[in-house]
C-alpha cells in the first residue's frame, strides 16, 4: 500500500464535531487494538488497509499521517478523507468544525474514549523520568567518592544563589511563622565573632556578595540588601529551608568516612564487565572502528566469523543479567564466572592480582571478550584499562593513561593464558566449560576433569606391570572380590559391568576396554597395597600417635600392634575403593624412606657429638628434658620442649643467617650478617665463635633424635620462621570454610538425589515409582560416581575426609532405600 497519496489542493469538508467524534469513538473502540500498533507505517496491519480500502464513505486519500516511536512500541495515526481516522493509543486527533474552529483530542484505548489529556505522553514522560533516574543512579554509583561532595557543594551554591535571587524580588511579605525558620542559626547577623570560625568565614563571604541575602535573628528570617532589611516572604523562607537542607546534606557527606578505592565487584559481579567495556571497545582502546577492524581481520582472517560481525558484538553493550548468589560462601568473582559461563557469546578470561593471589581468592578482575577467542589481556593492559577507569571515576583521565591503552588490543601483544585459566576445553576446541566444571577448577585448582581415558599404552604407572588374566582373577575368590570392588568404583557404570562380567554376559567394545584397563589398575593397586602393608610397622603408628592426640586416643583402644594389623587387613579393600589414599600413603612412605636414608641423617650423629664436645655441651640435656612416663609428664614435656625449641630455634636461625647468609633471607638480615662477620674477624672473635657454636649445638642436639614431638616442633618452627609466604594451597583454608564448602556439596548431592527421584523418567515415560530396582540403580550411577570419585570438595585434614566417608555410607543407605521402594503396579 502506498502510504503517500497524491497531494491535491485540499477541499475542506466539514461535518458536525459531535457527530464525527461519536462515529470515530465507536469505530475505534471496536477495531483499534493497542497490540496492533505498527513499528512503521509500512507495517500497518492488513485489516487496517482493508478497512480503509473497503470503506464506501472514503476515497482513500490520505489527509494526514503521523508516526512516532514510544517506548517499545509505536504510535501511528492516519487520517483519510471521508473516513474515520485510524488512531492508536494516545493518538492526537485534529478535528475542524464547520465554523472553522479546531479541536484536538487524544484517543485513549484504556477507556475507549477521547480526552484532553494525552495518555501516551504521560507514559512517555514516566518512561523518560525512569530512564533519567536510572542514569542518575548509575552516575551516582560511579561518583561515590568525589562526585557526592562536589554535587553537594554545587547544590549549596545553587540554592544559595536561588535564595539570594528570590530575596531580591519585589514581593515583600509580612511576618514569618517561627516554625519555618532556621533554628540552628538563631544568632544575630552582627554577632559573628561568637560563631565558629568556619561558619563566620562562610557568612562573611556570603555577605560580601553584592545583592540581597537572607539573615536570621532569633526565630525570624530577614532579607538584607545593602542597608535595607526587610522580613522574608514565603518563597524566600522556602528557599532558605532548601538551603539549610542542602547544607545538612553536605555536612553529612563531609563527616562520613571517606571511601577509598572503587567498589566494583561487591555490588554486582556483572558490573565490572560493564564498566570495563563501558561504552564500547573503541572507547576502551582508543582505536577507531577501521583500525580495530583492520587488526582483527589480520588476526582472524581464517576464522569463520568476519571481523565486522565480531565488531558488532563487541560494540554492543553488555547486558546486565539477573544474578543471585548460589550460596552465602560464593564469592562475587565466582558468582560472576558462573553467570558468565551461562552466556553463549563470551569466553571467560581472568587474571590474578597480587592481592587476590595472596588471599588465595579467585581474581576479582574479570574480563570477557568474544572478539578475542583464545587470547587474553596482559597484566599491563589490564592495569592500563583499570587506571583509565579509575581516572574516569575521579573525573579525569591522565594523558599517559590514554596513551598506555591505545594499543591495548594490539593482537601482536596478546599472550595465551594457561588453559586452566582460559575456560575453553583444551581437548575440544569450541566447547566451553560448564559452570560446574569452572566451579571445580576454582575449588581444587586442578585441571579440568576429563572423560576417563582407558588406554593402557603410554601410561607410566602401568610400566613393568604384569596384570593377571581375567581367568586368573575369576579363579580366585579373593581376587574376584577385590577386582569387583575396583570395577564398581572405577566409573559410573561399574556395577553393571561387574554384574555382566560375573554372569558371563556379552560386553560391548567399550566395556571390554574398561575391563582391560581395570586389570592393569588392579595390578597397580595390589602392588601399592603390598608396598604399604610391608611398610606399616608398629613404631610408625606410635610415632604418628604422638603427633596426633586424636589418633593417639584411637590407637590406645587396640594398641599399636593390633592397629597395624587392622590397617594391613583393611588397606586392600579400601585401596580398591579409594585410590587417593593408596597414592598418599605410598608417596609418604617413599619420602620418609628417602629422608631416613640420607647421608646427612646418618652422618649427623657423629657430627653433632663432635660439635657438642667442642661447645662444651652434652647430649644428656635432651634426655633430661624429655620425660614420657605418663600423660601428664608427656604434656609437661611437650610444653617445655616447645618453649626451648622455639627459643633455641630463633638463635639458631640468627647464627645460620649471619654465617651462611641463607639466600632467601631478607636484605636487612644480610646486612646484619655482614656486620657479624666483621665482628668475628675483630677482637674477641673467638669468644663469639664459641658462643655461636654453643647456640648451634644447643639446637642441633634435638635434631639427633627421631622423636616425633621434636620433629613436629621443628616443623612448626620452620614454618613460623619462613620469610616467604607458604605456597597457596588449594581448597578452603579454614576449618569452618572447609566445613561449609563440604556442606554445600553434600546438600547439593542430597538435592540432586531427591530431584533425580522426582524427575527422572525412562525412555518409555515411566517414572521412578514404576521403575524396577535394576533400572533405578543404573539411573543413579552418575550420582554414585560423583561421591565415589572424590569429586566433592573435602577440604583439608583427616576430619573432613572422615566426614566424607561417613556421608558416603549414609548416601549409600539412602540410595538403597530409594532403590528398594515398592514398584507401583
Amino acid at each position: 500500500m502506498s502510504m503517500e497519496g497524491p497531494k491535491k489542493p485540499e477541499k475542506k469538508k466539514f461535518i458536525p464535531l459531535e457527530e464525527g467524534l461519536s462515529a470515530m469513538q465507536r469505530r475505534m473502540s471496536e477495531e483499534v487494538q493497542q497490540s496492533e500498533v505498527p513499528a512503521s507505517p509500512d507495517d500497518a496491519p492488513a485489516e487496517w488497509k482493508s478497512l480503509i480500502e473497503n470503506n464506501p464513505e472514503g476515497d482513500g486519500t490520505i489527509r494526514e499521517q503521523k508516526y512516532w516511536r514510544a517506548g517499545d512500541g509505536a504510535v501511528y495515526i492516519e487520517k483519510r478523507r471521508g473516513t474515520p481516522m485510524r488512531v492508536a493509543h494516545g493518538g492526537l486527533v485534529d478535528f475542524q468544525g464547520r465554523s472553522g474552529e479546531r479541536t484536538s483530542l487524544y484517543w485513549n484505548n484504556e477507556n475507549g474514549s477521547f480526552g484532553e489529556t494525552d495518555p501516551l505522553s504521560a507514559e512517555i514522560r514516566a518512561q523518560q523520568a525512569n530512564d533519567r533516574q536510572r542514569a542518575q543512579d548509575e552516575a551516582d554509583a560511579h561518583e561515590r567518592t568525589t562526585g557526592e561532595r562536589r554535587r553537594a557543594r554545587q547544590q549549596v551554591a545553587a540554592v544559595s544563589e536561588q535564595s539570594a535571587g528570590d530575596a531580591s524580588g519585589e514581593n515583600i511579605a509580612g511576618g514569618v511563622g517561627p516554625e519555618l525558620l532556621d533554628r540552628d542559626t538563631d544568632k544575630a547577623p552582627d554577632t559573628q565573632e561568637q560563631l565558629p570560625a568556619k561558619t563566620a568565614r562562610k557568612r562573611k563571604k556570603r555577605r560580601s556578595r553584592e545583592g540581597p541575602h537572607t539573615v536570621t535573628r532569633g526565630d525570624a528570617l530577614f532579607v538584607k540588601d545593602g542597608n535595607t532589611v526587610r522580613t522574608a516572604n514565603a518563597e524566600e523562607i522556602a528557599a532558605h529551608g532548601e538551603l539549610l537542607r542542602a547544607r545538612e546534606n553536605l555536612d553529612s557527606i563531609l563527616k562520613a568516612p571517606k571511601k577509598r578505592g572503587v567498589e566494583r565487584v561487591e555490588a554486582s559481579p556483572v558490573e565490572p564487565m560493564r564498566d570495563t567495556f563501558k561504552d564500547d571497545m573503541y572507547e576502551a582502546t582508543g582505536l577507531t572502528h577501521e583500525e580495530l577492524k583492520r587488526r582483527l581481520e589480520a588476526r582472524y582472517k581464517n576464522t569463520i566469523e568476519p571481523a565486522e560481525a565480531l565488531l558488532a558484538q563487541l560494540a554492543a553493550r553488555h547486558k546486565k543479567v539477573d544474578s543471585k548468589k548460589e550460596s552465602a560462601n560464593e564469592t562475587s568473582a565466582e558468582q560472576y564466572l558462573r553467570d558468565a559461563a551461562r552466556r553463549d557469546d563470551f569466553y571467560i578470561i581472568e587474571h590474578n592480582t597480587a592481592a587476590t593471589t595472596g588471599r588465595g581468592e579467585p581474581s576479582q578482575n574479570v574480563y570477557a571478550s568474544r572478539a578475542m577467542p583464545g587470547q587474553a589481556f596482559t597484566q599491563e593492559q589490564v592495569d592500563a584499562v583499570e587506571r583509565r577507569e579509575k581516572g574516569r571515576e575521579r573525573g579525569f583521565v591522565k594523558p599517559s593513561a590514554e596513551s598506555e591503552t591505545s594499543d591495548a588490543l594490539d593482537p601482536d601483544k596478546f599472550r595465551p593464558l594457561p588453559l586452566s585459566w582460559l575456560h575453553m576445553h583444551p581437548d575440544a576446541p569450541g566447547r566451553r566449560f560448564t559452570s560446574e566444571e569452572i566451579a571445580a577448577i576454582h575449588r581444587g585448582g586442578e585441571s579440568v576433569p576429563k572423560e576417563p581415558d582407558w588406554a593402557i599404552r603410554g601410561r607410566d604407572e602401568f610400566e613393568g606391570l604384569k596384570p593377571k588374566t581375567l581367568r586368573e582373577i575369576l579363579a580366585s575368590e579373593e581376587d574376584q572380590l577385590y577386582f569387583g570392588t575396583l570395577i564398581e568404583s572405577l566409573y559410573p557404570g561399574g556395577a553393571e559391568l561387574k554384574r555382566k562380567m560375573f554372569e558371563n554376559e556379552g560386553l560391548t567394545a567399550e566395556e571390554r576396554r574398561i575391563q582391560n584397563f581395570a586389570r592393569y589398575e588392579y595390578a597397580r593397586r595390589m602392588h601399592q597395597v603390598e608396598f604399604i602393608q610391608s611398610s606399616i610397622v608398629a613404631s610408625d603408628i606410635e610415632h604418628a600417635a604422638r603427633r596426633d592426640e586424636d589418633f593417639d586416643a584411637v590407637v590406645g583402644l587396640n594398641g599399636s600392634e593390633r592397629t597395624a594389623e587392622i590397617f594391613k587387613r583393611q588397606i586392600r579393600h579400601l585401596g580398591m575403593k579409594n585410590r587417593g589414599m593408596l597414592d598418599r600413603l605410598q608417596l609418604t612412605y617413599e619420602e620418609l624412606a628417602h629422608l631416613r636414608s640420607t647421608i646427612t641423617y646418618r652422618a649427623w650423629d657423629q657430627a653433632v657429638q663432635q660439635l657438642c664436645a667442642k661447645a662444651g655441651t652434652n647430649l644428656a640435656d635432651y634426655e633430661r628434658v624429655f620425660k614420657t612416663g605418663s600423660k601428664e609428664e608427656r604434656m609437661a614435656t611437650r610444653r617445655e620442649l616447645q618453649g626451648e625449641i622455639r627459643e633455641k630455634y630463633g638463635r639458631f636461625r640468627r647464627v645460620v643467617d649471619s654465617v651462611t647468609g641463607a639466600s632467601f633471607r631478607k636484605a636487612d638480615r644480610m646486612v646484619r650478617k655482614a656486620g657479624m662477620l666483621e665482628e668475628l674477624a675483630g677482637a674477641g672473635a673467638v669468644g663469639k665463635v664459641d658462643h655461636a657454636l654453643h647456640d648451634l649445638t644447643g639446637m642441633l642436639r634435638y635434631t639427633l633424635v627421631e622423636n616425633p614431638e621434636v620433629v613436629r616442633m621443628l616443623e612448626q618452627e620452620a614454618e613460623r620462621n619462613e620469610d616467604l609466604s607458604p605456597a597457596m594451597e588449594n581448597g578452603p583454608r579454614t576449618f569452618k570454610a572447609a566445613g561449609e564448602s563440604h556442606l554445600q556439596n553434600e546438600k547439593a548431592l542430597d538435592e540432586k538425589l531427591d530431584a533425580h527421584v522426582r524427575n527422572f523418567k525412562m525412555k518409555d515415560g515411566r517414572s521412578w515409582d514404576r521403575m524396577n530396582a535394576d533400572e533405578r540403580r543404573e539411573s543413579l550411577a552418575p550420582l554414585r560416581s560423583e561421591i565415589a570419585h572424590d569429586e566433592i570438595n573435602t577440604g583439608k585434614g583427616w576430619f573432613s575426609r572422615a566426614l566424607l566417608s561417613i556421608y558416603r555410607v549414609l548416601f549409600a543407605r539412602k540410595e538403597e532405600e530409594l532403590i528398594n521402594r515398592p514398584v507401583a503396579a
Partner: protein
Amino acid sequence: MALDIQDLYAKLRELREAGKEEEARTLLTRSLSELPEELRAEIMLEMFADALEGEARGMTALREVQQEGLAAAALLEQQERQKKEND
C-alpha cells in the same frame, strides 16, 4: 544402644558449622569404636596418613636444620682457625 550414624553425622555437621573443630574431632574420636569396622579403619587410616605426612614434613624441616647447622658450624670453625692463625 547402637550408634545412629545419621545422628552422629548431624551432630558433627552442627559442630562443624559452628566452627568447633576440637569438639567435633573429639566426638568423632570417641564414637569411632562404635562405627562399622570398615568405616572405622578408613577414618583411622586417614588419621594415620595425615600424621605420617606431618612426620615427613617434619623430617624435611629437620634435615634442613641439620644441613644448615653443619654448614654454619664448618664456617665458624674456619673463622676461628683463621683468627687464631692471624693472632
